[in-house]
């Protein structure tokens, strides 16, 4: 944190700031010393904030026109698409916005994995981030149920049925979740209520996420601790704000491309068929961002085992800071871990792909191999590689050279380019 005390110039400002130091907070956010070598993978925090605000604003407008009733929900969505002024635009921004949100969050998470941003002293930032991610999945799943199409209904049926795998009380829990003896109107109603609530919980966690970030400050591509403020840092404004704005605009161009020119490509066509409890779709698939977990779930022949493994796949990330034994943060200086990192990326992509395929034949084999590797990566590879690996020499500071004494300001960047 910036240590200089901030004093407002005006008398009124000083009066107010003495009572509620909002202006001090503003000054802190403006001056916040940020490593100057952050690359574009670091712009996704700002992009994600934009995504959250976009979802909240479009969602509030949609909720003014949507009707959470099993007989009326599908028709009310068509009403939004046809009769509400720019309803089609608001709804397409909201539905594609969910996908863009997850795209950004996955990049954000993998950036953290690559540069070791989850390691001491940033474990709490990481854990809050994972809680946000969990809530995002819950919000997205419930949001997908609201249009009450075939995939909404059957997706909800599959996911809520997972809880029936719990021994003894499973069936009671499932009935309790439904509020009925199957997915029905009460289920839709409570999902709408929770879908409206969760984004605000996320917003609260985002504040904590940023607060926790501002205590140690940003990690950086070199992964070393830096003095703040120093030659290695720049004030957040205008340097980082303008860079984040640029990256956000590039992101928005892609976002707009989906919204205006191919708004339904990320959804499933079956969801334009009204929900019908008597007709099961040929393949029930979740939205793309949940597919890797769906693949893990289906890779286990036992229902309870599959559910446990799927939840473990997420919860293992919570202890990641303590599974990683390496003292070096950035994979830039970790030649062995770096390779395993990319294998993990491909493994997760593969799991996502087989999650969309029927669980049979080669796909089932791939799902099992992918699942085993996923857990091996965290339980075996991370502790062992961290322990055995001979890391590359680490620079003393962002501006200073690697043990040679020769000044090379853009060293970190060059090292990165080789990756």
């Amino acid at each position, binding site marked *: 944190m910036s240590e200089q005390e901030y004093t407002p110039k005006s008398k009124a400002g000083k009066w107010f700031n003495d009572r509620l130091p909002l202006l001090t907070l503003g000054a802190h956010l403006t001056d916040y010393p940020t490593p100057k070598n952050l690359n574009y993978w670091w712009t996704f925090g700002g992009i994600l904030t934009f995504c959250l605000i976009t979802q909240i604003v479009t969602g509030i407008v949609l909720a003014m026109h949507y009707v959470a009733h099993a007989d009326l929900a599908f028709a009310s969505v068509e009403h939004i698409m046809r009769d509400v002024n720019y309803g089609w635009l608001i709804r397409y921004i909201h539905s594609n916005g969910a996908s863009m949100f997850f795209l950004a969050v996955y990049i954000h998470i993998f950036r953290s994995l690559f540069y070791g941003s989850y390691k001491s002293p940033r474990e709490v930032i990481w854990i809050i981030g994972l809680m946000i991610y969990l809530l995002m999945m819950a919000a997205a799943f419930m949001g997908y149920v609201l249009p009450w199409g075939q995939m909404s209904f059957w997706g909800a049926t599959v996911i809520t049925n997972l809880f029936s795998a719990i021994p003894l009380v499973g069936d009671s829990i499932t009935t309790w979740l439904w509020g009925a003896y199957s997915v029905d109107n009460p289920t839709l109603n409570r999902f709408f209520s929770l879908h409206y609530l969760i984004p605000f919980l996320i917003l609260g966690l985002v504040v904590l996420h940023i607060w926790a970030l501002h205590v140690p400050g940003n990690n950086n591509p070199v992964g070393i601790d830096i003095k703040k403020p120093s030659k290695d840092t720049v004030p957040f404004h205008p340097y980082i704000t*303008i860079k984040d704005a640029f990256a956000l605009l590039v992101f928005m161009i892609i976002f*707009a491309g989906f919204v205006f020119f191919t708004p339904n490509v990320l959804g499933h*066509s079956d969801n334009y068929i009204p929900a019908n409890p008597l007709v099961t779709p040929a393949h029930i698939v979740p939205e793309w961002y949940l597919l890797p977990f769906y693949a893990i779930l289906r890779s286990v022949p036992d229902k309870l085992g599959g559910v446990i493994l799927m939840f473990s796949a997420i919860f293992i990330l919570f202890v990641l800071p303590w599974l990683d034994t390496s003292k070096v943060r950035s994979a830039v200086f970790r030649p062995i871990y770096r390779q395993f990192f990319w294998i993990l990326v491909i493994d997760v992509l593969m799991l996502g792909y087989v999650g969309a395929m029927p669980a049979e034949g080669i796909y089932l084999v791939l799902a099992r191999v992918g699942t085993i590797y996923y857990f091996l990566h965290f339980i075996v590879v991370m502790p062992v590689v961290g322990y055995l690996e001979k890391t590359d020499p680490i620079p003393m500071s962002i501006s200073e050279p690697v043990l040679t004494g020769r000044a090379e300001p853009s060293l970190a960047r060059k090292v990165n380019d080789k990756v």
Partner: protein
Amino acid sequence: MIKSNIKLLVLSFLLIISLRPLQSAEMVDPIKVDWSFKGLTGTFDRASLQRGFQVYKEVCASCHSMQYLSYRNLGEPGGPEFSEQEVKAIAASFEIEDGPDSQGEMFTRPGKPSDKFKSPYPNVQAATAANGGAYPPDMSVLVKARKGGANYIYSVLVGYEDPPPGVTLDDGVYYNKYMAGNKIKMPNNLMDGLVEYADGTESTVDQMAKDVTTFLAWAAEPELEERHKTGVKVIIYLVLLTILVYLSMKKIWSRIDTEV
């Protein structure tokens, strides 16, 4: 070494993905039609939409509902764009049930532009019972509700064939090359010269299938033209703004010794 390993992995991943078409080769891919509404600046062919509405009204509407459309939509920009008088006349040609009146009785009256399209059956059960146990789906969003979209709908309409030897069909079931499972309960309703187009276009099966599919594509996405037009403007605006912000960023970062 590292790079070659990664390349190998990426290649194997691509290989797995490319296996996909081999696995699902039984389904025939729909015919690809060069629709005027495809692409970034695609628009509907106005004349085709009007002809398509005629095919819908005279052929499809006897079994299929389109409950999310209103007659007024037929005159709105981006659609068939019938004139106000035409829309009123179309609406008035339907008897719509309304009420209850002050005596508590339901009554019928000629349709108004604000009315929803009249459904051929009072409910899903009635529609199912009248069609041999197969519900003729509501066509409002049919194009969006089928994988393959407009291409698929068109393909099914022209995809009726005699069943190949060895395939036996029950009564009221027809063979269609593009339908999933090849069995369809909708008979082949299109035959050359079935409707008399007001604009003199020859009503071949292919022409009618294309026209009605265009009409259904508009019905599913009535906002398509506005969406495309707005999209182009938005992207141009964003690109220009991005360039300006990029230049500002370069300028600001030139104050320090770090590249951005």
